[in-house]
């Protein structure tokens, strides 16, 4: 029914529908589109970086532009590509996995998305307005506080706005998972992806405030003449580094944990076994989240914290290898003796294990504080974090997309194209980054725009650039796959993979109320339990009755637009106070929308029992 309506609607109506939607599935799709766009943008920046480094003393880009490229590549990939794509999967899947009809705060969910998008757009506006930020994605003071122009101002304001969106999204998922689980869905029956989404949301809740505070201090230093990071005014630039990494280290676990969750679900589905060591997996996830807050200073070993502090943080960092190792072995044991089916989703998961383990090994090497003095700021570090972020997070996103694409869009991604994507990307990835370990050990520093001839770096860099092109081809094939699949892809049933968890018990794509009747969960892998006892679907936990749904609203879009406008005002008022008018207009729009939201009753609507019955008979 929803399909026939979609076909009859005009483009404008569909657009309005997406602008005002509070449906977690549509918000998930918007996160996917926006995150995918920024992923391509970040990829383009990466290609420019690699092209510049293809030969010694290349002059493809200028030194200043190279700084902008590396800064924006890192910032875009972390904040605007990886995080939103993770949120896309969480939005699409978590409510379905716990048997909920929607998230706890649908309005906030939509607000979180629009804040992220407008923050990202604000950040990228800098390209056209006098130059992008150029102080590295870590924006260390004092480089960032004295960087001329408005580049770093865009970094501060853009990340502040999109960071607020992420924080809101994280809180929403926390409350959703705590409060909205179906009857019988105890914590220890939640699928691993939901568990990791839960821990990730907790990390967002605790880590993002540090970034918010850091960005505010930097905003005041750059725009309002304060001196938090200025030693000549009694400040201290190391404060920024601490605040950034108190946020920044949990951030990498925010990214990787949901990927771990994807792999756990994929391995158990395609091995036809329940996840090996489920309890240990949950425990390891919680432990990684906990330890993630106690290791941030391993990014700062060379700052001069002293041997005592360095040792404490080195030991804490190495401790993280233990829960991660538990996870790796549990995945291997899940595969062991399973009825394994290798398709695209599974390929990404299988490719992840050796790739991520390599990244983990170099991680332990880097954790040794004394050795880190050698590796610090060299390509060895670049190789390490690309192994964990690409080999972990990006592989996880691809795996999750192949796995849940049928649930999100009702069509199965083409397998042949999927396998081509995997192999080109996988080979390209190792070609690009494996050699960078050795480039780093040979002394090639990070963030330099050129290197000299005949220092043993020429050939390695050439190989690395060739590898990057393979990765680009892989990404393009995936895009082609998406287009081809949406035109003439194989239609998916409710349960194309013979799945184990709740999301496979409802149609693909699900109706906007998800579950006609809330399901009764009788154990881990609830759908599998019902199937193994000969039932076709879940037993409902409630009689068929009216469903209460929230109304859509344009306010989240308008509020984010207000902050976007105010952002420009904050940046340009440093030249002319007349720009403050933009701050007043933007904040006025924001506060006005908040007032409307507070004063206007919006009680939602009901889907009536009779309509649900009619739907079921069709």
């Amino acid at each position, binding site marked *: 029914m929803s399909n026939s309506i979609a076909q009859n609607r005009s483009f404008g109506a569909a657009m309005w529908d997406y602008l005002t939607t509070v449906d977690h599935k549509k918000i998930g799709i918007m996160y996917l589109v926006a995150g995918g766009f920024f992923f391509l943008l970040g990829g383009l920046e990466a290609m420019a970086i690699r092209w510049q480094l293809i030969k010694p003393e290349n002059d493809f880009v200028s030194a200043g532009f190279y700084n902008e490229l590396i800064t924006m590549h890192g910032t875009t990939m972390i904040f605007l590509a990886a995080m939103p794509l993770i949120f896309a999967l969480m939005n699409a899947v978590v409510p379905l996995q716990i048997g909920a009809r929607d998230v706890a705060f649908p309005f906030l969910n939509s607000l979180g998305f629009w804040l992220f998008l407008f923050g990202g757009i604000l950040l990228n506006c800098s390209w056209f307005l006098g130059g992008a930020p150029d102080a590295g994605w870590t924006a260390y003071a004092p480089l960032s506080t004295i960087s001329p122009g408005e580049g770093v101002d865009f970094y501060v304001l853009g990340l502040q706005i999109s960071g607020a969106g992420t924080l809101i999204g994280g809180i929403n998922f*926390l409350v959703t998972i*705590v409060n909205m689980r179906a009857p019988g869905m105890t914590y220890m029956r939640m699928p691993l992806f939901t568990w990791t989404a839960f821990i990730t949301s*907790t990390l967002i*809740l*605790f880590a993002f405030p*540090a970034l918010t505070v850091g960005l505010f201090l930097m905003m005041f230093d750059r725009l309002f003449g304060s001196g938090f990071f200025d030693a000549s005014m009694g400040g*201290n630039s*190391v*404060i920024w580094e*601490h605040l950034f990494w*108190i946020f920044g280290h949990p951030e990498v676990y925010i990214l990787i944990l949901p990927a771990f969750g994807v792999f756990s679900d994929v391995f158990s589905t395609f091995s036809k076994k329940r996840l090996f060591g489920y309890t240990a997996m949950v425990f390891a996830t919680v432990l990684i989240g906990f330890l993630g*807050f*106690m290791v941030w*200073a391993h990014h700062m070993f060379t700052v001069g*914290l002293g041997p005592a*502090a360095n040792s404490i943080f080195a030991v804490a960092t190495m401790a993280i290898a233990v829960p991660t190792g538990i996870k790796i072995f549990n995945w291997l044991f899940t595969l062991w003796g399973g009825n394994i089916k290798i398709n695209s989703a599974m390929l990404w998961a299988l490719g992840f294990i050796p790739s991520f383990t390599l990244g983990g090994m170099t991680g332990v090497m880097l954790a040794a504080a004394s050795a880190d003095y050698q590796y610090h700021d060299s390509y060895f570090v670049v190789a390490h974090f690309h192994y964990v972020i690409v080999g972990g997070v990006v592989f996880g996103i691809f795996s999750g997309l192949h796995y849940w694409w049928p649930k999100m869009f009702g069509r199965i991604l083409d397998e042949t194209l999927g396998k081509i994507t995997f192999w080109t990307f996988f080979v390209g990835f190792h070609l690009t980054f494996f050699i960078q370990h050795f480039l780093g050990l040979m002394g090639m520093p990070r963030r330099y725009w050129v290197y000299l001839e005949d220092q043993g770096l020429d050939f390695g860099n050439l190989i690395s650039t060739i590898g990057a092109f393979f990765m680009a081809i892989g990404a393009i094939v995936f895009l082609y796959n998406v287009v081809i699949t949406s035109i003439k892809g194989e239609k998916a049933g409710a349960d194309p993979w013979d799945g184990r968890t709740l999301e496979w018990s409802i149609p693909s794509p699900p109706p906007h109320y998800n579950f006609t009747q809330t399901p009764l969960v009788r154990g881990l892998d609830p759908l599998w339990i019902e199937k193994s006892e000969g039932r076709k679907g879940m037993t409902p936990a409630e009689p068929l009755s009216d469903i209460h749904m929230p109304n859509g609203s344009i306010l989240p879009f308008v509020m984010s637009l207000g902050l976007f406008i105010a952002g420009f005002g904050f940046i340009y008022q440093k030249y002319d106070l007349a720009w403050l008018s933009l701050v007043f207009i933007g904040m006025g729009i924001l506060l006005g929308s908040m007032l409307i939201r507070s004063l206007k009753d919006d009680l939602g609507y009901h889907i009536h029992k009779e309509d649900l019955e009619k739907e079921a008979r069709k």
Partner: protein
Amino acid sequence: MADKGTEVHEELDYHKYKKKEEMKRQVITFALMIVFTIIAFGMVVSGLDKLFIIPIILVLAAVQVGFQLYYFMHMSHKGHEMPALMLYGGVFIAFLTVLTMLVLIWW
């Protein structure tokens, strides 16, 4: 019938008793909080040594926050394990942050 009647009656009594207890506790904490505030003000007015006043005021403040959370915001009741966990988690992270700033930067 009669049995059921007494049962309901007993349950009602139980709830009444519970409510009374709760009320008693709230009044006691309220009184204590006022006393704490008076002590804090009194110490400042009496002009004692700063090094003595500040730690005591901080301790009193911490106890008051505890009262607020547990008696007025009902964290002592069942079903508040998750908010408690989150609160203590947040306090822990904030403590670590402040500790780092103290130890690694300002000392």
